[in-house]
């Protein structure tokens, strides 16, 4: 910060020097005109001409330096602000992004930032340049001829009055335009992301109408902005010209009466012309500053948001998870006004496994999100190895957890980098193992560049199932203390799922794991099963105990089995389950192979 100010001050000094030098040519011109009117000789004229060019060279050097110095500071600041904004975004919690439009946030990191840079670079440079030019030229004029200066500069205060009148209005209107720009972006983004639905329901026309309404509002606001903004330039031009008109009259009279020479009048005229540009630039600068500060306030708004999830001051590395014992202690959680979890208490001993089942919207994902501190509890506490997760440094907490989120997000990186996303130096063996467990190895072998294949636009587009499997590989590659699978196999076909589950059993050994699933078959062998309904734990226990209870779980299981039996005449649930268990091992691998080759 201080460095920027120092460089900026240096730039300012350069600007002052450059402007002082620029005063000189008008002086030479005055001498030349007066010389010419008294019949100067060729030698004198050549001397005047050479002086004019020489001064321009020196002034140009200073101009170049000052422009470069000031603008490079602006670029540097842009770089740093963008960097800080990115850092800030990285620290913000997931809920923050859910409540906002991504397109709008990106616009702030790009468009608004370049507006701020415009304000700082060309803005400051012009502001300084204009101010210095006006002051220096003004002083020079007063020194040479106070009376003539008074005549020609009386109109200048009009300029300030005018600024004060319009600048607030411009600022307000510009902000409205920018806000609507965000709306246009957001609407377009939504349409393009949801284009399948739009097309499937033949909503193209309705979407176009909706977009055009926003589009028209944007135009309306832009025109309202232009109505005031268009005044700036012409007004600057007018007011600076006004001074010349006065000079022509009063100065002309002074020449006629013999008070001043014609050369002096021309000199003054040159100074006024030299003032006109800074005056006009000042108007333009005001524009830049208006837009820049509107943009700056949009950025500041983002920067001032406080991440809801952050390291507590008392967070200590000593609290880092080592064993993986998890406890939910009277946990409640509200999302907005709605309470989605109510008084949840669960204890998961280190190395054991927990299954969470229950109907849609019961709060299953919320529970694991509280563990990973995607959100924080409203009341109660989540503990790992006896430490409240809020007292564990976030980095340590997340290092301990391998999470496969319900809605997966992969980056436009290579397969290798996506799988190794949480593991900084993944060996070939570890990579191969993760790909094998997640059953992605065969798919990857078919990709053009094997594990170096890029995901996304510049490479392959993964299917839903492949994405989920990549998500599993990514979590496994991290070799976490605690493994969380949140409905992670829903898009994977049945025999791939069977193969993944079989291999996952080895992975889960010695780790604490939490599995959320819709199908009980996925989780029935886990150590502990919790049944969630409307944010409350309604049942808990082992698979057999829950079946014996004959409640919600038993009902779910019965329905699933019934469905899966496909009208096969097999009334005894337990018997059918047992008999399947006896058959499954051999067939699983057989059919798996069939499926791949046949």
């Amino acid at each position, binding site marked *: 910060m201080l460095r920027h100010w120092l460089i900026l001050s240096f730039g300012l000094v350069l600007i002052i020097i450059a402007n002082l030098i620029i005063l000189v040519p008008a002086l030479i011109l005055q001498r030349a005109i007066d010389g010419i009117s008294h019949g100067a000789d060729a030698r004198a004229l050549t001397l005047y001409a050479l002086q004019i060019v020489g001064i321009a060279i020196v002034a140009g050097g200073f101009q170049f*330096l000052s422009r470069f110095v000031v603008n490079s500071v602006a670029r540097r600041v842009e770089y740093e602000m963008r960097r800080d904004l990115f850092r800030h975004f990285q620290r913000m919690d997931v809920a923050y992004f859910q409540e906002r439009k991504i397109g709008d946030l990106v616009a702030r990191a790009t468009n608004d930032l370049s507006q701020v840079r415009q304000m700082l670079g060309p803005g400051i440079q012009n502001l300084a340049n204009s101010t210095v030019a006006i002051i220096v030229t003004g002083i020079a004029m007063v020194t040479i001829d106070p009376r003539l200066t008074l005549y020609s500069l009386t109109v200048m205060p009009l300029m300030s009055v005018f600024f004060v009148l319009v600048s607030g209005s411009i600022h307000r209107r510009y902000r409205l335009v920018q806000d609507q720009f965000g709306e246009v972006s957001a609407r*377009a983004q939504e349409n393009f992301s949801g284009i399948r639905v739009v097309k499937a329901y033949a909503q193209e026309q309705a979407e176009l109408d909706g977009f055009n309404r926003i589009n028209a509002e944007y135009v309306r606001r832009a025109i309202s902005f232009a109505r005031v903004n268009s005044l700036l330039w012409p007004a600057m031009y007018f007011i600076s010209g006004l001074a010349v008109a006065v000079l022509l009259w009063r100065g002309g009279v002074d020449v006629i009466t013999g008070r001043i020479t014609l050369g002096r009048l021309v000199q003054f005229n040159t100074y006024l012309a030299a003032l006109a540009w800074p005056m006009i630039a000042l108007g333009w600068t005001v524009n830049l500053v208006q837009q820049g500060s509107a943009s700056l306030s949009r950025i500041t708004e983002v920067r001032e948001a406080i991440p809801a999830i952050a390291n507590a001051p008392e967070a200590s590395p000593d609290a880092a998870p080592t064993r993986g014992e998890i406890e939910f202690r009277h946990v409640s959680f509200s999302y907005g006004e709605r309470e989605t979890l109510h008084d949840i208490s669960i204890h998961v001993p280190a190395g054991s496994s927990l299954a969470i089942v229950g109907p849609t919207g019961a709060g299953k994902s919320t529970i694991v999100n509280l563990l990973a501190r995607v959100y924080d509890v409203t009341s109660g506490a989540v503990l790992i190895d006896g430490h409240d997760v809020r007292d564990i440094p976030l980095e340590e907490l997340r290092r301990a957890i391998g999470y496969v989120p319900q809605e997966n997000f992969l980056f436009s990186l290579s397969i290798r980098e996506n799988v190794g996303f949480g593991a900084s130096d993944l060996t070939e063996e570890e990579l191969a193992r993760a790909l094998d467990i997640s059953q992605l190895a065969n798919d990857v072998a078919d990709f053009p560049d094997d594990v170096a294949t890029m995901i996304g636009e510049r490479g392959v587009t993964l299917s839903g199932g492949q994405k989920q499997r990549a998500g599993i590989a990514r979590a496994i590659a991290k070799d976490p203390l605690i493994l969380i699978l949140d409905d992670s196999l829903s898009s994977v076909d049945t025999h791939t799922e069977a193969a993944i589950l079989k291999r996952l059993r080895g992975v889960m050994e010695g780790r604490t794991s939490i599995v959320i699933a819709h199908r009980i078959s996925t989780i029935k062998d886990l150590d502990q099963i919790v049944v969630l309904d409307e944010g409350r734990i309604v049942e808990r226990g082992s698979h057999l105990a829950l079946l014996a209870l004959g409640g919600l779980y038993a009902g779910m299981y019965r329905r699933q089995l019934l469905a899966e039996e496909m009208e096969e005449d097999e009334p005894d649930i337990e018997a059918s389950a047992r008999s399947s268990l006896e058959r499954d091992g051999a067939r699983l691998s057989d059919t798996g192979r069939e499926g791949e080759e046949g």
Partner: protein
Amino acid sequence: MAQSFFQDDEILGKAYDARLVRRIWEFVRPYKRQGSITLLVALLVVGDDLLAPFITQLAIDRYIAPTHPSAMSVADRMNGALLMGGLYLLTLAVGFGLRYSQTFALSVLGQRIMYDLRSSLFRHMQRLSLGFFDHNPVGRLMTRITNDVDAINDLFTSGSVALLTDLLTLVGIIIILFVENWQLALVVCLVIPPLAFATSRFQRVMREVFRAIRVRLARINANVAENIAGTQVVQLFNREDRNFGYFDDLNHDYYRTTLRSLTLFAAFLPVVNLFAAVATALIVRVGGGQTVAGLLSLGALVAFLQYTDRFFLPVRDLADRYTTLQSAMASSERIFRVLDEPVTIADPANPIPLTSVRGAVEFRDVWFSYNREEWVLKGVSFRIEPGESVAFVGATGAGKTSLISLMSRFYDVQRGEVLLDGVNVRDVAQADLRRHIGAVLQDPFIFAGTIASNIRLGESDISDERVREAARFVNAAGFIEQLPNGYDEVTRERGAGLSVGQKQLLAFARAIAFNPEVLLILDEATSSVDTATEALIQDALEKLMRGRTSIIIAHRLSTIRHVDRIIVLHKGRIVEQGSHDDLLARNGYYKRLYELQYAESVTGA
């Protein structure tokens, strides 16, 4: 991520490209009248501007310092000076009015054209096939419709017209100078060739640097968007620092490139000023000599100096104008590339109207590929009778989803044909076709709006009552009514705050609200809903399937027990079909799939 750049964003703009200008002209044409008036006003502004030094010359030669001062009384000369001052003021006032009307009219014109451009882009994109959206990231498409359109706006407000007035000013000044004194004018014109040379050199280098900057900025923007969208994963995997490292490389690379452009920009103005000084020096030396010799009046000499000063003003702006033009050309190139994107899935010239649809679906030897390399469907033929329900089963990649997409004509088949009631889907208007096909897609997309608006979408014909009915039908009413504002509860972008299951139910309600008379297509839609809800949906489905041709895609065999027929797909071919019992008895691929499903249900994790 670090390497993720978009070819499209690397278009190297020329400052003037006749082909593009003609395309832009199509959008200007409707406003020809307003445009011409604006141009006319711009001309008047130039004329008004050029009047000022002439008034000065008149004032000096007639009143202030006439060659024969004694010819006029001092009082008359003073009045003359006042008159000239007043005249000058008048040109200023006229200039102000003209300039304001021109600037404002130009802004309005620009905005109207922008509206049309955005609207055309959006409309065209609505007609493009899904293949287009598969290949173009959303961020890029957004840039087309926002930033690129804005860059063209600059072309109007600060580019083309300003450039034109600049040129007119330059030409006007040169003409005036020659009329005043052609010898002196010729001498002043000596600076023009080297000035032109320096300017064109500058532009050439600027163009390279400009391109480099744009490419880098596009990379930064893509990276920021991806990181915001993937925040949760970045945080859960402690990737902040490494992702920041990638980003910082991009950001720093951009910063370094901008410094290069800065050097050029900083140098340009002093160089132009130097040329202006040389011109002034030439006037003093040569013109001064002429004045001394009595060949040139003092007023004319002063006017010469003033005109020359004005000559260099537009030249100083040239750099900015050039950048504006170049960026507008690059943007328009990208915009027209989208507008020129052929509508591969187009409505026929004379679509066959679908009046009363019975719902017979037929695939006749259908071959289909997304990329023309790998066949997804290889000669698939089947016929589904009106009212019949059919389930497609098979492993991932068997081609099930493609079947659905072809039925809705999201893509066109390469060979064979898809028929609805014996009519090729290509011969029907898409909107007409899709009105009869209710589709629940894999991704239950939720729009920003309300619960109700997500069910009825843009169809105002769908009454509140029908929305509620649909929600009740698919058992979505339960969770909706528990929301604080019920059906008016605000939904955020992509349905944040709703569970996947809830979004799924909403998508069901949406399909049902549209009451597709004929077809209901469910694309593995039941996979993310829990067992209890799934049972309710099964129940709703059964009701729906009655009297409707239904196609169900499901990975879970358990969800298809109620269908009339099952078609088993394997690697793009139909391997078996028949009823569940028939297929089991056949002891083939389906039997193995089924048993695997059954075995897996007791394997556990």
